[in-house]
């Protein structure tokens, strides 16, 4: 039995359906990311789990208990907001201890727990400060400690890193993952940043227009996208329009080049797609013209045009190896298994 179950959740605001038939089972201690573009309903699902929105339909279960009708303050769920939402009248220690105070934990036990939490987030000496005396990254860590202090059953984070600058974002996301694993707390993390989701999640739910398009491990999502939307939203994708020549043997034709995929294909036309790191300049393949070369440190990024398609190819930086130059006519291919076949 899964620890957290979202069972056919639906939510409409007036006539607009914002979340449709959303189901998910989360194991205890799992780290789940909701990934999707802005406005796709991630926050709404999270708020239903927290109890701030009532689902129009469906159920939410935590540890076997139906919490759908429970008020937010009875759910034992920790929540971290994008805008921190620290209590401005309380010190850092007061903020972290707030949930314990509400629960009637005696002062001494509370102080111990607050100290423990501040140590956990790496700010052991800031208990006496007020929120406005902290940087954004520090405030968000305090918000995390505050959410964790009462030992919630589930931790929810709604784009907790979006308001921070790039460097802090990177270090804090690793810290969140470390703390999550240390405590083994069941976590849902909302983000619109695919790199963030790929790097820290056990599983990712890719959302699109209120629907869960695909749920899977980061490598599943990246390597085997279930829909065109997932393929395009997660990572960069090069797409080709292909004509299926032999559905059984798995032969297609792209821009006059024959490509053998070695798998069963639907008849007619399909979209053939490949990641930038899968595409190679090769003796055989799709004819293309190089339009640009960028050096990004660990990789060279080649831009090319094949028929009407703009392509991106990433090539590991291997000093001494010859690179094509802008204007060169080349041929491009990928290993048969690296090609994704999407419905046209």
């Amino acid at each position, binding site marked *: 039995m899964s620890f957290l179950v979202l069972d056919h959740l639906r939510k409409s605001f007036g006539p607009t359906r914002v979340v449709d038939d959303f189901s998910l089972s989360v194991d205890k201690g799992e780290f789940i990311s909701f990934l999707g573009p802005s406005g796709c309903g991630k926050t709404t699902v999270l708020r239903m789990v*927290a*109890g*701030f929105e009532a689902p129009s339909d469906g159920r939410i279960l935590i540890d076997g208990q139906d919490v759908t009708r429970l*008020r*937010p*303050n*009875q*759910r*034992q*769920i*920790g*929540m971290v*907001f994008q*805008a921190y*939402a*620290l*209590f*401005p*009248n309380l010190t850092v220690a007061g903020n972290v201890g*707030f*949930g314990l*105070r*509400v*629960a009637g934990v005696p002062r001494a036990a509370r102080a111990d727990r607050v100290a423990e939490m501040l140590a956990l987030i790496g700010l052991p000496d800031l208990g006496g400060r*007020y*929120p*406005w005396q902290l940087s954004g990254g520090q405030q968000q860590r305090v*918000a995390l400690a*505050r*959410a964790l202090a*009462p030992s*919630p059953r589930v931790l929810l984070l709604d784009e907790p890193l979006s308001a921070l600058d790039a460097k802090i974002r990177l270090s804090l996301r690793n810290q969140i993952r470390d703390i999550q694993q240390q405590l083994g707390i069941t976590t849902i993390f909302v983000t619109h940043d695919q790199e963030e989701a790929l790097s820290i999640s056990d599983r990712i739910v890719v959302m699109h227009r209120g629907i869960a398009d695909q749920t899977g491990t980061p490598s599943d999502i990246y390597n085997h996208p279930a829909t065109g939307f997932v393929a395009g939203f997660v990572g960069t994708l090069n797409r080709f329009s292909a004509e299926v020549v032999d559905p059984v043997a798995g032969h297609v034709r792209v821009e006059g080049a024959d490509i053998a995929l070695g798998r069963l294909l639907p008849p007619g036309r399909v979209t053939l797609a490949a990641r930038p790191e899968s595409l190679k300049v090769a003796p055989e393949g799709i004819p293309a013209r190089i339009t640009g070369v960028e050096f990004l440190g660990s990789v060279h990024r080649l831009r090319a045009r094949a028929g009407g398609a703009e392509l991106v190819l990433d090539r590991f930086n291997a000093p001494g190896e010859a690179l094509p130059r802008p204007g060169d006519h080349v041929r491009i291919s990928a290993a048969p298994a690296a090609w994704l076949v999407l419905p046209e």
Partner: protein
Amino acid sequence: MKRFWSWAAIAFGAIYFLLPLIGTIEFSLRMRRGEYSLDAYASVLADPNFRATFGYSVVMALLTILLGVLIVVPTAYWVRLRLPRLRPVIEFITLLPLVIPAIVVVFGYIRLYNTSSVLPLTGTATGTNILLLCGYAMLALPYMYRAVDTGLSTLDVRALTEAAQSLGAGWVGIIGRLILPNVLGAVMSGAFLSFAIVIGEFTMAALLNRPAFGPYMQLLGANRAYEPAALAVIAFGVTWGCMGLLQLISRLLGVRKTAT
């Protein structure tokens, strides 16, 4: 030239405000023939009626503040949290006491709560006190509501509420531990304005026949020469004392006021 006119405006304002005050103070010191003295003040302070009515009004003022806070803070909070579209309506309602004369309100009270009504509040002294308290709270409403609402506008009420809820807090906890402490500075400024209003209020207290400071001032003014001037100066001092206290307290609380 511009400078000249701004100075002239300031001078005119100063004369407009200060001359009557100086005149009153000067007059209040002339009780003893031929020399300045504090006799009028001594006479006022020695009057047991002064002490009784002033004490009564101070207690009423404090109760008014308490009632005002209990009504206004949860209301203004709830409107911001759940009924933001009703804010203009609520704001309009809270401004009504400035538009409707107190005398109209008090006659309404007397008609509604007289001894032959369902709720005969005017039948007993306690009942009438309660009625007067409600009247005072209503008079103070515009000031209290504005102050608190302005205080709330500096907070992200919804996010703070949700954060507190997810930490297990109920409504009483949220208002008591979170909202009230965060708008305390604003509550204070509303409170002192309420105080100043109640101390000098005449119409309601007189028509409900309660022994308040306002009617006492009027009575004294009608019957004595120098004492009313002394009383006016005392009342003025009390009011300004309140304002000063207000500044002081909001500055002390301001230390913990948040930026973002």
